[in-house]
């Protein structure tokens, strides 16, 4: 009750200030009158009595002030007037205010943007009911699993999922899902959208309600279904159907098959995968019909599903794991792939299922970007620190200019706390404006970041809301910076003895070392921090440069990767090979195409294929058979990519089904597997799971090339003849080298494909673009750390310039005397530069130590560089030293051009 009365009375006090003041005045006057009357009764004269009464009271204004400070609204009022005073001061110094607000907004904006991404990718929970009850069901350590891995989350095979669903006890509901892409064009050019295969209980488990129509349920997901209902996402509904409510029941073509739209998901539901989104979700059972021959539904070695469940009340993740482990031995026994060799089998039977917390969903984006984001956040925080140090320096300079004012105010009775509060209000105002602008900036920055990581083939979606965490983070930053750059100068400014400050004019006083020391410390730490940022920026830039110039073993430019999908023709294996051959011939015949070749695995595309190699023609398999990367290529592959053939021959048109099996290997293969430099003529066999094929005769040797990733060490790669492949794909990936302009080339290729068979799905991607997309993270790190590095150096140099100029101004007198005593210009310049060199060398030394300690955090993100790379460190130090000395040269020159008489007179 007391609180409310107080609040209410305080508010009344604020609004009826005049009246309250008048009443207080009246009351005190009344008291005085009565006190005086009493004294007169005791025999004093009227004057004496009044005087005594007033003396007793000790000043009516002081009492009033005491009464006022007993109520909270007074503090509010004084804060308000402090803020208004602060705002007025800032208006008088627009340059100072502008620079301060801009640097704070940049610093806070960058920090908030990166934090916002981290929040969205790492910290936020799934937008579903009670996300903490959701767990992911997968194999604890799937290392050594064999088979086909076709999804981003290849946790399980379909037979495993069926068994888990039947045997588990920990979950009230559970589902399996797999991300995919669907072509929604009824005919003609491919239009891919993001799709999900979901088992029947997907929506039920997540506890979602459709905003329109109904959701898929267990009756939609019946094994063997040919087609089914489709649930579409809110955003797909909006941009594809304009939010039309009559969309329910309409037909939607997915991979040339009709589906019926049954429901629309809530607006904030993007799926269970953070960083991605989905457009259409269809029942899991339709995979068999949609994928046809490539379906993995029946396959025991096809890994393509992930599973999640909602824990029953009272069940914990640990308890669920124990139960899943208990059913594991029998489950893996029952789902053992039939085509495994003894080695694979041993691994498979030792697997254990487990439950893992999934309240924030799953995300491969998180795996790739969590560490870089934390690192970037640290870099951005350093930039903000440097910006704050700059501000602190500016505030200190202003504080010393206001020393007299402070002294005067303290002399007439202002309390020190009151003055500090007033000075802090100014800083608070700056920090608050900076934070608001920063928050606005952050929203655009984080969107820009996400957009820069997204490609048309791999679109990302990050829900970038501003939640309480982001808000708290930004507000916290503002307060921290305010305290950091405002408090020390405020304390410093008010720690003056009024008498001393008022007495001393500028004449004759020498610069006290203590007061100036804080500014030196600030500049030294700025230099140290900015060196660290510069080292980071250079490390990432050099790492990216090394990655882009790394020897891949093939040419990257001028090559178009074309994918022609002819799965709709449903051809037999021989017909696929001949049709693929026909496509390639037609494309080679296009005028302007100088080379073209087909490859089942396009290098650096992310697809990989590994099998065991059995040496000789009859040796039995052992446990130590080496593994090798595989590719099936057409004749001309090496020529198209300009990979040098070192020995033997390329494949030719006589290497077809029925003729002796041939292979080409790379140098690493020959060296590591055969331990020879001339492998031509050697025979070997291949073991795919339990199936052994061959023997193959090595007919050629090529130079090492990259296979799956630019960062990898040279791998052993064996190339087999595409025409001899017993499992040819239903599409052709053709690498075309041509000097034709891109639009002309693509339309010519489309025509060629059409002439082979009309209506085939054709898609294009530049080889170079594909490789560059693989370097997105490195590019992001290089760009952002470079930006932060430049910003940091700029701020630190401004800080140094400020301090040196200040020093010159303070020492005008001394410099004047030195000059009139005969010091020449050069010795004056040396005097000033000595000061900055001193600051610089301390700062750089500290910065080198700090960089060595901090750069270890970047180790795993670097390529071809050690984090404590000496060349980088030297380069960064030199750059910073040169820029800093150049900046302090300006005030040095100005000092040397002082007119000694002027300097002495004009103290």
């Amino acid at each position: 009750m007391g609180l409310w009365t107080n609040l209410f009375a305080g508010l009344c006090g604020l609004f009826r200030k005049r009246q309250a003041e008048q009443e207080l005045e009246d009351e005190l006057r009344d008291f005085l009158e009565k006190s005086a009357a009493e004294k007169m009764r005791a025999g004093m004269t009227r004057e004496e009595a009044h005087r005594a009464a007033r003396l007793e009271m000790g000043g009516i204004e002081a009492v009033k002030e005491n009464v006022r400070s007993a109520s909270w609204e007074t503090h509010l009022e004084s804060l308000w007037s402090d803020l208004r005073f602060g705002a007025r001061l800032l208006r008088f110094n627009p340059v100072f205010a502008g620079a301060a607000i801009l640097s704070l907004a940049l610093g806070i904006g960058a920090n908030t943007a990166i934090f916002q991404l981290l929040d969205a990718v790492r910290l936020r929970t799934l937008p579903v009911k009670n996300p903490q009850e959701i767990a992911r069901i997968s194999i604890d350590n799937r290392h050594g699993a064999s088979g086909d891995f076709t999804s981003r989350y290849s946790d399980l095979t379909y037979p495993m999922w069926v068994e888990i669903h039947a045997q588990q006890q920990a979950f009230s509901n559970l589902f399996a899902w797999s991300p995919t892409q669907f072509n929604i064009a009824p005919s003609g050019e491919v239009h891919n959208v993001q799709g999900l295969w979901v088992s029947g209980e997907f929506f039920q488990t997540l506890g979602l309600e459709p905003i329109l129509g109904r959701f898929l349920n267990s009756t939609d997901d019946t094994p063997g279904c040919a087609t089914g209902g489709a649930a579409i996402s809110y955003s797909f509904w909006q941009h594809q159907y304009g939010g039309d409510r009559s969309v329910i029941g309409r037909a939607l073509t997915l991979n040339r098959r009709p589906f019926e739209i049954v429901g629309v998901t809530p607006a904030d539901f993007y799926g269970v995968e953070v960083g991605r989104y989905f457009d259409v979700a269809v029942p899991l059972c339709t995979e068999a019909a949609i994928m046809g021959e490539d379906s993995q539904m029946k396959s025991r070695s096809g890994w393509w599903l992930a599973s999640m469940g909602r824990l029953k009340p009272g069940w914990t993740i640990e308890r669920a794991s124990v139960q899943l482990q208990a059913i594991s031995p029998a489950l893996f026994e029952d789902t053992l792939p039939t085509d495994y060799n003894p080695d694979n089998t041993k691994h498979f039977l030792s697997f254990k299922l487990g439950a893992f917390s999934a309240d924030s969903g799953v995300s491969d984006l998180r795996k790739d970007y969590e560490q870089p984001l934390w690192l970037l956040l640290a870099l951005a925080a350093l930039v903000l620190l440097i910006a704050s140090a700059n501000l602190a320096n500016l505030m200190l300079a202003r504080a010393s200019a206001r020393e007299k004012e402070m002294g005067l105010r303290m002399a007439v009775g202002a309390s020190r706390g009151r003055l500090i509060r007033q000075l802090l209000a100014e800083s608070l105002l700056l920090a608050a404006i900076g934070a608001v602008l920063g928050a606005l900036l952050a929203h655009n920055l984080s969107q820009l970041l996400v957009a820069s990581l997204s490609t048309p083939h791999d679109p990302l979606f990050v829900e970038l809301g501003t939640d309480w965490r982001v808000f708290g983070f930004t507000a916290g930053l503002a307060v921290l910076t305010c305290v950091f750059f405002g408090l020390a100068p405020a304390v410093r400014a008010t720690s003056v003895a009024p008498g001393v400050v008022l007495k001393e004019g500028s004449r004759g006083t020498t610069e006290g070392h203590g007061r100036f020391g804080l500014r030196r410390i600030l500049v030294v730490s700025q230099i140290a921090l900015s060196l660290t940022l510069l080292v980071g920026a250079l490390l990432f830039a050099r790492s990216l440069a090394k990655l882009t110039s790394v020897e891949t073993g093939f040419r990257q430019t001028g090559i178009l990767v074309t994918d022609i999908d002819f799965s709709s023709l449903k051809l037999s294996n021989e017909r696929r090979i001949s049709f693929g051959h026909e496509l390639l011939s037609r494309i080679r015949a296009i005028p302007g195409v100088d080379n073209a070749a087909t490859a089942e695995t396009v290098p650096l595309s992310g697809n990989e294929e590994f099998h065991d190699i059995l040496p000789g023609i009859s040796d039995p398999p052992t446990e130590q058979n080496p593994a090798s990367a595989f590719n099936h290529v057409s004749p001309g592959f090496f020529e198209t990519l300009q990979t040098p053939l070192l020995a033997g021959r390329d494949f030719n048109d006589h290497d077809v089904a029925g003729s002796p099996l041939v292979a080409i290997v790379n140098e690493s293969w020959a060296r590591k597997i055969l331990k020879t430099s001339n492998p031509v003529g050697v025979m070997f066999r291949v073991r795919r799971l339990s199936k052994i094929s061959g023997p193959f005769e090595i007919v050629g040797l090529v130079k090492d090339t990259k296979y799956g990733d630019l960062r990898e060490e040279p791998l052993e790669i064996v190339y087999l003849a595409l025409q001899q492949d017993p499992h040819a794909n239903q599409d052709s990936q053709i690498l075309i080298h041509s000097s034709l302009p891109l639009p002309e080339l693509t339309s010519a290729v489309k025509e060629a494909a059409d002439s082979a068979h009309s209506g085939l799905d054709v898609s294009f991607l530049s080889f170079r673009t594909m490789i560059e997309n693989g370097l997105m993270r490195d590019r992001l790190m290089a760009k952002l750390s470079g930006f932060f590095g430049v910003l940091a150096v700029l701020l630190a140099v401004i800080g140094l310039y400020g301090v040196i100029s200040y020093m010159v101004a303070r020492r005008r007198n001394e410099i004047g005397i030195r000059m009139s005593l005969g010091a020449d210009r050069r010795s004056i310049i040396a005097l000033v530069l000595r000061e900055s060199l001193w600051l610089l060398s301390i700062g750089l030394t500290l910065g080198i130590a700090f960089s060595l300690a901090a750069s270890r955090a970047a180790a795993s993100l670097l390529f071809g560089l050690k984090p404590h790379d000496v060349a980088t460190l030297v380069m960064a130090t030199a750059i910073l030293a040169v820029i800093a000395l150049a900046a302090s040269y300006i005030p040095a020159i100005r000092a040397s051009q002082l007119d000694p008489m002027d300097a002495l007179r004009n103290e």
Partner: protein
Amino acid sequence: MTVTSATLVQGTLDMLILKTLALEPLHGWGISQRIQQLSHGVFEVNPGSLFPAFRRLERAGLIECEWQTSENNRRAKYYSLTKAGRQKLRSETKEWERQAAAIARILQTAS
């Protein structure tokens, strides 16, 4: 020896004011005089602490005030206890007596 309000134990002044007002509503001067009289001149209350205490107690809802015409026909602000103030006085008094007794016991055993 007189004790000025500045040296009074923290919170004691509030209790004394409440006690003074328990009898009848009074104005500021009256309260200060009453405290002085009742303590036989030991406590001398300075307006500099008295008026802030009024504001504090008023805000806490322990006393309320009203402008009335005083004896010599002047307008004066009269303070009176609220229900909460009366309760507070009772509990404070009890607490004070308990503490004073305890202190007295300690002082007796020590001597």
